[in-house]
């Protein structure tokens, strides 16, 4: 059975394809081609939501993107979207939708008491009421959020997939109405690469809502069909429907959101398609043909369900074949709305009256309405409306001469539909986002685009050209012009633009605030912004309180700040403010339009960069072997590094203790492949290192290694590592794992911008080599079995490197040590990493070879007092603070040198690196613990510094720690206290930083 308010014929819906959907728990039927809004209206449902502040019943007020009332929650559970506009939701079988911002139901909402208490909720209410005491805001906030709120967040991770794509084109045409279509046609015919983006599912724009329009003597939609066919036949034109151009950014960068599957039933969505796609588009020229949005009139209680824009009524009748009511009143200030009256009349809806603010209604459509015998009340206003969940009647009264007042008690006219028109606002949002100026047009009383700020033009209603014929011509010409600017001149005989009737909505009488029979704010609400419940009285109050700038008025009253961004309210608000001051509208100015034009799904910004694809994972060539060995991993930058290697039943502490002991007692092995490696070559390589590192490099012998400290120009430690001289003009630098990329960037910057005269070549070779570090007294014994290199202490001393083979693999072996024990680092080509690891593990069995992870490495180096950049340093620590004066050359310049000799650097109370030993040897200080000289009853206490590293050391047989302490080196032997969060206080003694093998015999042996 067809729905009660469905017309038996007409419209662009497919009556042979019924669609079943749910709204607020009830099942309804609509047709393919419906929106949720049109299907609800067909079923007589007008009450779809409650307003934001007063919880007043609200209905569908438009038929497009400007909808400010019918904000709907669609879907359930994790597949749930809030704040969708019912007017843009394509009806799909199985759609589940519900009202939002109402409790317990849209029919009965307890917060409606706000409406009766509205005298207590003026503009700025939140600022005025909840600011004191400030600490209570959190309490207020949760209650306010619950009562207000715009829909619910989905419950759980988004199960749908989203995609992103880049695109370039010569001409982007935004909007496929008459101007956009002629623009795309003429630019496309010229050969330019054109993208035509349309938010709707069909081309045609306003023509889809105009039953009788004709172009070139044929029905307009037939012409649209021809245009579509021609555009689809052009290889250089791409049409994107269901695609919202939501933002216009710098350098003609445009964001578009394409909706690919929302209009398909869940079981018919192709698995290969993402739900939405983000287009990141760079266009040489942008042609905005975004049309215009009808403006409501601001009159008393203008928000009741059943009160909607006149153009929306036309859309519902003509495009969707539904009757938005049975008995209509038209309320207008212009001739254009009479077209709606005629369309409603033709559809069999009783038009009770056309209430016209103009004193002498005239114009082509007005004449037609007169001929049709419709009742026209000139110089009249709607001064009140009645009806709770649907408008029931309007009160109509004649206006005074000046339009400031109304006379008499008025006439009551019964109706269930009020079609309103206050003129039209060009959709200048994208033009304004691009920083194009907008200017006020006095004839049409609207803001139109001024000079563009980027390579863009506007055409059609968007530029203030309201007649169909003018739109077609302007679009046609703009298409030719923009294509020519991108190098595509129109070929052949000059084509004429298609012809059509040229009629706009004038004449009109501009009245920003329709008077009522009571003073403003005393009974009846003149809504300006229905989404935010901002009334004309609220605006006046803000002005009385001293607000002047329209930007301030906007923020104070929240007008135009909802998800609709004031599409139907901003210009009325500006008009009312101007009226209050008695100044011309341009003097008030206009608020800035900001992206997005309509809300964009979060998912498209994430695209596929979610879950495992959020960030690349880097694994060493031996990773699979570590996994097999049961390693626990930690993330170091993007790298996965073995953290420790637990064996049966061990916890982390036990595993680390075992690994640390093994390295001192026999033999440990570590995968050090992640350390950054930079190959440095060129005749000035040594000089380059001189300038980059704090110490000197010219005298380093070929085959020798040296530890280096790198500073920023501010004198602070930036990175450290061992660099080896492979040849006269060839070095291999190592960096910390996490700093490999920034260090390379640092070197390149100085080489290119400060010292271009140096001949040096830098290559990152981190991933070209696998590095295995052997550490412990048996390191030499094991390696001797695997290599042809003479390992004797004389032939291969500490801090040198040798080239040879290891397990038959070409290898560079470095005798360097981060553990403080006898140690060799073997570099082999990455593809041999796993083979070498396996060989080492097998050959090392007799020494009880023990793989160790980063945690054991940290303990081992801390036993020796070796720093870790980023742990002992934090960007505010100099080499002197670390007690590393020995590495700072006094004979040469280097990056950061001058900063080290600033007066501040020699202060005695700088934080200096020291060791700490707790009085109770078993007690391990927490890293980050603050240290004080004197413990007070409660904070604040005077803090001297903090613990940077702290471990239990099985080799020392107690806990050890390092800390940065103010004037630390002068405090050797003195006591410090660490008051912890749980109230306990740890007492410790300041010491040197080397806790194990202070003479370094083990390293050199």
């Amino acid at each position: 059975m067809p729905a009660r308010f469905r017309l038996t014929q007409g419209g662009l819906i497919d009556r042979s394809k019924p669609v079943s959907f749910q709204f607020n728990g009830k099942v309804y039927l609509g047709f393919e081609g419906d929106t949720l809004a049109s299907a609800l209206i067909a079923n007589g449902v007008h009450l779809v939501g409650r307003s934001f502040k007063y919880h007043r019943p609200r209905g569908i007020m438009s038929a497009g993107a400007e909808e400010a009332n019918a904000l709907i929650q669609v879907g359930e559970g994790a597949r749930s979207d809030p704040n969708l506009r019912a007017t843009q939701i394509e009806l799909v079988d199985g759609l589940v939708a519900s009202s939002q911002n109402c409790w317990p139901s849209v029919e009965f909402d307890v917060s409606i008491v706000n409406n009766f208490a509205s005298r207590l909720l003026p503009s700025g209410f939140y600022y005025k009421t909840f600011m004191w005491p400030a600490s209570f805001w959190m309490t207020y906030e949760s209650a306010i959020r619950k009562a207000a709120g715009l829909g619910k967040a989905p419950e759980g991770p988004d199960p749908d997939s989203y995609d992103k794509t880049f695109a370039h084109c010569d001409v982007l045409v935004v909007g496929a109405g008459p101007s956009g279509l002629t623009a795309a046609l003429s630019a496309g015919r010229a050969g330019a690469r054109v993208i035509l983006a349309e938010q709707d599912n069909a081309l045609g724009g306003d023509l889809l809502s105009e039953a009788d329009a004709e172009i070139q003597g044929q029905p307009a939609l037939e012409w649209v069909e021809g245009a579509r066919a021609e555009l689809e036949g052009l290889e250089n034109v791409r049409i994107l429907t269901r695609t919202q151009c939501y933002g216009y950014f710098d350098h003609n960068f445009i964001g578009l959101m394409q909706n690919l599957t929302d209009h398909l039933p869940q079981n018919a969505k192709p698995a290969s398609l993402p739900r939405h796609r983000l287009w990141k588009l760079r266009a040489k020229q942008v042609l905005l043909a975004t049309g215009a949005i009808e403006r409501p009139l601001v009159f008393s209680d203008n928000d009741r369900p059943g009160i909607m824009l006149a153009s929306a009524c036309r859309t519902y009748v003509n495009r969707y074949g539904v009757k938005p009511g049975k008995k209509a009143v038209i309320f207008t200030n212009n001739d254009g709305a009479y077209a709606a009256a005629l369309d409603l009349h033709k559809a069999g809806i009783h038009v009770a009256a056309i209430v016209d603010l103009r004193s002498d209604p005239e114009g082509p459509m007005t004449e037609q309405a007169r001929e049709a015998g419709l009742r026209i009340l000139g110089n009249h206003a709607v001064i009140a409306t009645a009806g709770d969940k649907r408008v029931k009647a309007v009160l109509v009264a004649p206006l005074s001469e000046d339009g400031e007042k109304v006379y008499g008690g008025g006439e009551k006219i019964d109706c269930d539909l009020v079609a309103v028109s206050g003129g039209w606002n060009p959709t200048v949002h994208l033009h304004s986002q691009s920083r194009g100026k907008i200017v006020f047009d006095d004839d049409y009383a609207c803001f139109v685009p001024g000079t563009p700020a980027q390579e863009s033009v506007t055409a059609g209603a968007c530029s203030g050209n309201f007649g169909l014929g003018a739109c077609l011509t302007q679009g046609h010409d703009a298409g030719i012009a923009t294509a020519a600017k991108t190098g595509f001149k129109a070929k052949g005989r000059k084509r004429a633009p298609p012809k059509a009737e040229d009629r706009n909505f004038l004449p009109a009488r501009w009245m920003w605030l329709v008077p009522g029979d009571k003073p403003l704010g005393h009974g009846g609400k003149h809504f300006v912004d229905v989404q935010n419940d901002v009334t004309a009285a609220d605006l006046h109050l803000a002005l009385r309180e001293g607000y002047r700038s329209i930007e301030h008025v906007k923020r104070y009253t929240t007008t135009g700040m909802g998800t609709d961004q004031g599409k139907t309210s901003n210009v009325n608000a500006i008009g009312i403010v101007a009226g209050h001051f008695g100044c011309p509208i341009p003097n008030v100015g206009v608020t800035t339009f900001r992206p997005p034009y309509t809300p964009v799904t979060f998912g498209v910004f994430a695209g596929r960069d979610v879950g495992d694809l959020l960030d690349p994972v880097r694994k060493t060539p031996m990773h699979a072997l570590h996994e097999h060995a049961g390693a626990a991993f930690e993330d170091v930058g993007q790298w996965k590094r073995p953290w420790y290697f637990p064996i049966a039943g061990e916890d982390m502490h036990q595993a680390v203790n075992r690994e640390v002991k093994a390295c001192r007692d026999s033999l440990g092995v570590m995968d050090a492949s992640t350390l950054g490696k930079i190959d440095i070559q060129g005749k000035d390589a040594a000089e380059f290192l001189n300038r980059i590192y704090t110490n000197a490099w010219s005298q380093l012998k070929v085959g020798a290694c040296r530890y280096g400290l790198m500073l920023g120009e501010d004198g602070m430690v930036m990175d450290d590592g061992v660099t080896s001289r492979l040849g006269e003009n060839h070095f291999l630098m190592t960096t910390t794992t996490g700093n490999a990329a920034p260090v390379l960037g640092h070197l390149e910057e100085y080489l290119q911008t400060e010292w271009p005269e140096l001949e040096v070549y830098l290559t990152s070779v981190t991933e070209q080599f696998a590095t295995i570090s052997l550490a412990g007294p048996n390191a030499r014994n094991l390696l001797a079995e695997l290599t042809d290199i003479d390992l004797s202490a004389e032939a291969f001393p500490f801090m040198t490197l040798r080239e040879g083979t290891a397990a038959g693999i070409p290898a560079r072996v470095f005798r360097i040590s981060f553990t403080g024990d006898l140690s060799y680092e073997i570099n082999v080509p990455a593809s041999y990493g796993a083979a070498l690891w396996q060989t080492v593990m097998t050959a090392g069995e007799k020494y009880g070879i023990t793989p160790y992870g980063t945690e054991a490495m940290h303990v081992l180096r801390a036993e020796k007092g070796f720093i870790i950049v980023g742990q002992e340093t934090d960007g505010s620590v100099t080499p002197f603070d670390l007690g590393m004066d020995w590495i700072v050359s006094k004979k040469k310049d280097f990056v950061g040198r001058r900063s080290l000799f600033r007066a501040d650097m020699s202060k005695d109370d700088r934080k200096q690196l020291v060791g700490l030993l707790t009085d109770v040897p078993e007690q391990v200080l927490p890293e980050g613990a603050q240290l004080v000289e004197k413990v007070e009853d409660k904070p604040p206490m005077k803090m001297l510094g903090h613990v940077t590293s702290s471990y239990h050391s099985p080799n020392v047989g107690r806990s050890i720690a390092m800390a940065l302490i103010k004037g630390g080196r002068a405090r050797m032997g003195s006591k410090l206290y660490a008051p912890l969060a749980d109230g306990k206080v740890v007492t410790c003694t300041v010491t040197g930083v080397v806790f194990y093998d202070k003479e370094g015999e083990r390293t050199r042996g």
Partner: protein
Amino acid sequence: MLEINCPYCGPRFETEFSYGGEAHIERPKDSENLTDEQWGDYVFMNSNTKGVFLERWVHTSGCRRWFNVARDTVSYQILAVYETGAKPPKLDLRNDV
């Protein structure tokens, strides 16, 4: 998002580049003779120009080369792109934007 015309690779999205602050600030060769204040000025202080600003960019995700850009900090228009070490092109350095 800006479109930057890398002198070596051609026009690319801003996301491929990194910003390097004000251009034409030479690292002092005689830092010994500078006061702390003069040295601090070199290390930390950049102009905050309203209008045409000469600045450094590096094509981090491309050729990794540094170059200079003349950009209007009001309109974000890029007026010129030139190599490191080259003199800035003659431009209308408006003060009134």
